[in-house]
């Protein structure tokens, strides 16, 4: 009986997140309309960029909440998870999302740092949720590696404040102040500071070679949590990098430094991810590495720069969030069905769980950039601007790595989806809430490929304006 209560809680929880989605959308709309932060930046800073990211997070959060309602209650039903633990799960879930919202909304870069650290600490429990040896190991690596990275980020932040004090600015870490004083900051220190920032938050964003924690954590976390980690935590860390990047660009007077660093790291991530995608056996690790790959795409796009590329990058963040969370949801369902992560042992998903199978296939095609799905468009935008910037070699490399990743993913996924289902496994239907989550995300995946509705377009444009400093 208790699992029904858990499901009830889950549903209510999901509904709450539905409300949050609406709120975020409304906020984004108003910000875009106003063309400037709707609330005067004080402790909070809600300009186009942060609002857009909030929108993305709220969407994934809503889907994840919907999914959890089915997933966790099912676990409880199976007796895999105690009721108390289920409640704790919801608590952690909310805390996690709250900390991410905090990251996106605060003005002071110091608090931002604290919030990012907060996300690590909270999600560590979600990673170690099942308390198996693997999950604990993953959680430990996650928390330690990320904390080290984050500490470096703090170092960078302090260098910024030092630069500020050298420039005779007020003793504050508010982004708005730094932004206004940016031109006066000592370039040398800013350079150094940004290195620390990039490595620090880059660790959290899963940029190679600091990505090492990522596949472990993502593969061990609870399915909805993996989705959250992959879909929104990485962009959240990137958001921090973007914030600092803006200051750096102004104070250095050119975007070269920023773009060169990001391009280099982006390509590195792409290469490593593409290579490791080929030799994966574990389903969720595969998805994790593809997240690294997409982070690589995003970084490269940021490195390329220019309005088109930035628009593409932001759109790509949204698309990747939707696609990747759908994939992780599907993976969670499949894994709990087949009882293994090993793709060599999973066969005939299309038969054993048709609904999941079809949507998973569609999402996989979207992930590797087939139209009419959304990622094709955003990647195309990035490639286009790459060519128009004349960065031929760079874009060629990007295309090459994408092709390799394409081959790897399609190879693994299709061998898994196709074929007859193994003996002793009969066709089963997913709970309604899970289906709802799938469909909700799929609408985005398909819709954004064909047509970007006005609200999202305005939101992205506003964010892009902040990013391109227009």
């Amino acid at each position: 009986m208790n699992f029904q209560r858990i499901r009830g809680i889950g549903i209510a929880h999901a509904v709450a997140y539905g409300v949050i989605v609406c709120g975020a959308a409304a906020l984004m709309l108003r910000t875009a309309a106003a063309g400037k932060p709707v609330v005067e930046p004080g402790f909070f800073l809600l300009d186009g960029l942060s609002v857009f990211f909030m929108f993305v997070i709220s969407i994934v959060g809503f889907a994840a909440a919907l999914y959890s309602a089915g997933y966790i209650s099912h676990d409880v039903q199976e007796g895999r998870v105690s009721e108390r633990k289920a409640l704790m799960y919801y608590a952690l879930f909310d805390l996690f999302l709250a900390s991410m919202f905090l990251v996106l909304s605060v003005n002071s870069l110091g608090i931002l740092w604290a919030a990012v650290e907060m996300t690590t600490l909270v999600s560590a429990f979600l990673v170690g949720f099942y308390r198996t040896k693997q999950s604990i190991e993953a959680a430990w690596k996650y928390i330690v590696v990320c904390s080290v990275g984050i500490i470096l980020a703090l170092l960078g932040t302090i260098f910024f404040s030092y630069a500020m004090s050298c420039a005779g600015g007020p003793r504050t870490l508010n982004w708005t102040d730094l932004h206004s004083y940016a031109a006066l900051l000592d370039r040398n220190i800013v350079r150094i500071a940004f290195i620390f920032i990039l490595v620090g938050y880059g660790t959290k964003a899963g940029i190679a070679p600091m990505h090492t924690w990522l596949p472990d954590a993502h593969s061990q976390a609870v399915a909805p949590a993996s989705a959250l980690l992959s879909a929104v935590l990485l962009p959240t860390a990137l958001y921090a990098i973007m914030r600092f990047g803006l200051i750096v660009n102004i104070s250095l007077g050119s975007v070269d430094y920023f773009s060169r660093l990001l391009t280099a790291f982006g390509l590195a991530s792409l290469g490593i991810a593409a290579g490791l995608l080929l030799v994966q056996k574990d389903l969720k690790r595969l998805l994790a590495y593809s997240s690294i790959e997409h982070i690589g795409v995003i970084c490269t796009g940021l490195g390329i720069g220019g309005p088109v590329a930035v628009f593409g990058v932001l759109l790509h963040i949204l698309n990747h969030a939707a696609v990747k969370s759908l994939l992780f949801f599907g993976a969670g369902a499949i894994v709990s069905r087949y009882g293994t992560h090993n793709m060599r042992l999973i066969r005939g998903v299309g038969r054993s769980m048709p609904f999941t199978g079809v949507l998973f296939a569609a999402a996989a095609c979207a992930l590797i950039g087939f139209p009419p799905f959304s990622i094709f468009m955003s990647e195309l935008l990035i490639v286009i601007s790459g060519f128009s910037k004349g960065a031929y070699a760079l874009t060629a490399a990007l295309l090459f790595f994408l092709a390799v990743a394409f081959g790897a993913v399609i190879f693994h996924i299709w061998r898994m989806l196709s074929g007859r289902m193994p003996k002793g496994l009969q066709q089963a239907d997913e709970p309604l809430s899970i289906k709802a989550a799938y469909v909700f995300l799929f609408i985005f995946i398909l819709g954004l490929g064909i047509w970007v509705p006005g609200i999202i377009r305005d939101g992205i444009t506003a964010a892009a304006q902040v990013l391109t400093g227009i």
Partner: protein
Amino acid sequence: MDYFILAHIRFIFDPLSVFFLAVIAAVSAPALIYSAGYLKGQFNRPRIVFLHALSVVFILSMAWVVTSADLIAFLFAWEVMSLVSFFLVVFEHEHEQSVQAGVIYAIMTHVGTGFLIAAFMLIAQYSRGLDLDSVRVACASMPSDVRNLVFIFLLAGFGTKAGIVPVHIWLPYAHPQAPSHISCIMSGVMIKTAVYGLIRFVIGLLGVTEPWWGVLVLILAMVSCLAGVIYALMEHDIKKLLAYHSVENIGIILLGVGACMLLTAMGGTYWALLALVAGLYHLMNHAVFKGLLFLGAGAVFKATGTRDMEKMGGLIRTMPWTAGLFLLGAMAISGLPPLNGFVSEWLTLQALFLGAFHAAPGGYRLFLGIAAAVLAFTSGLAAACFVKAFGITFLAEPRSQQARGAQEAPVSMRAGMAVLAGLTVVLGLGAVWMIRALVVVAGSAASIDTAGVSFGLNNLVISPAPGSGTYLSVPLIFLALALFAAGITVYYQRINKRQVTAFRTWDCGYYSLSSRNEYTATAFSKPFRIAFSFLLMPYRRTRKIWDTFYQVRSFSYETHTTPVFKKYFYDPLLRLIFNMAGVMRRIQPGSIHLYIGYIFVTVIVLVIMMRRY
């Protein structure tokens, strides 16, 4: 600039697009008719519905490809086409090899698309918009080295889809795996969209200036012709055989297109037009007869449950309709008068000859002559191959139980095939009208003024070069053949009628002649296997199964040919990539200390290198 698809949905219906629409319709409609009977009893109801839905989307996407007047829309439609066809290839996903085929297909086509994207983006550099008109303007203002690069990319991209050697690797895997009416559409139409792309973008928009473009295309075409037909000769999986013939025929089509490019660059527009007409004509014809053949093969497959020709034979008695229609297709593809394949091959030969004579200087003449010789060689080998295909499959005694128990195909399937068979005849006899239409198409495609140009003397006689006395009249030839045949038959049946007794085949006094004594497909192609051993690298394995130490119970003998391109190009490439991946795997050994070390090192390196960037 807005890059989203809705803003780019523009259509173009110039003669070229309309022609390709016609091709699509001409092949797809019969295929769909056929599928009604073909799918019955193969899959359960929902899957059939799903398959039909996919097929319709597939056809529509191809139609969109050939009519979209915008680069983005073209790419979009192109990828949708690839995606849907991929789903169709892996449709029977219970078979491991269908998934493998699908994966190979997907990867190859994706690489091709990568090249296309690169080419289009290069073009977009020089153009205001992405619609074809502004692209045409842009292409005019492009520096020559960029033009060459764009051409190479386009050739690579479209060539992959068209399945020209050496990027044909996916084709013989993918086409046979799909359900037969889909193989028919894929082989008949889908690979033609690549030719459309070449004509539209290279000849139409980019404009051929360099002779070496044409030379390159011709060389690739020749290689494709020969390699395709030689591999086809070695096949005894009937659908794979047909797939390899698609490679060959794409080669023949590209002979026409390449000659057109070369001659355009040489300035012989009239002869370029002739060449393009020949290419387009063969494109149409190949769509028709290859479609027919795939449908026939599907019927055989449905009846016998196997695609292996060695297990067939004698089907002409159990399924006479299918046999007759397949025979028509085989005659057409072997270029026998009076069917359509004959006309287009003749026309291509004439185009090469006349182009060499009128437009090309010294060395190029020899080159074109050799191309013509290669074409002749190819058609000869194709004839041999289809003697094998038809003879082994349909004639003599059944070689297996399945073949013995075969049933004639249902009406809908026969109807589908009959339509295409009729087209092969019509396109053969109505050559002059067809050519007139194609002159308009080719003229608009290559932007050549076609006023007063119709390569025909009157409604019966083709004359590619007026005044040179070179004529061809298919109807007359048909008339002659028919009259003589009728006369002979009359003589045979009426004038000099004798008694005819049926008796056992002569067996050299060896009194148990059975289907095991028949010539097999492998035996038939043995001379070719020896002759082309330089390419095929055949090898054999014989094993003795000993009963006792002294007595051999039986021998096992098997012979194979080496898939050269796979073994010496693709496999090493894959191995290289996988090895690199394996090396990368080692950077993630699971030691947290190492991981922290990475961060540390990264920071220090960056700080040291800081001054560099």
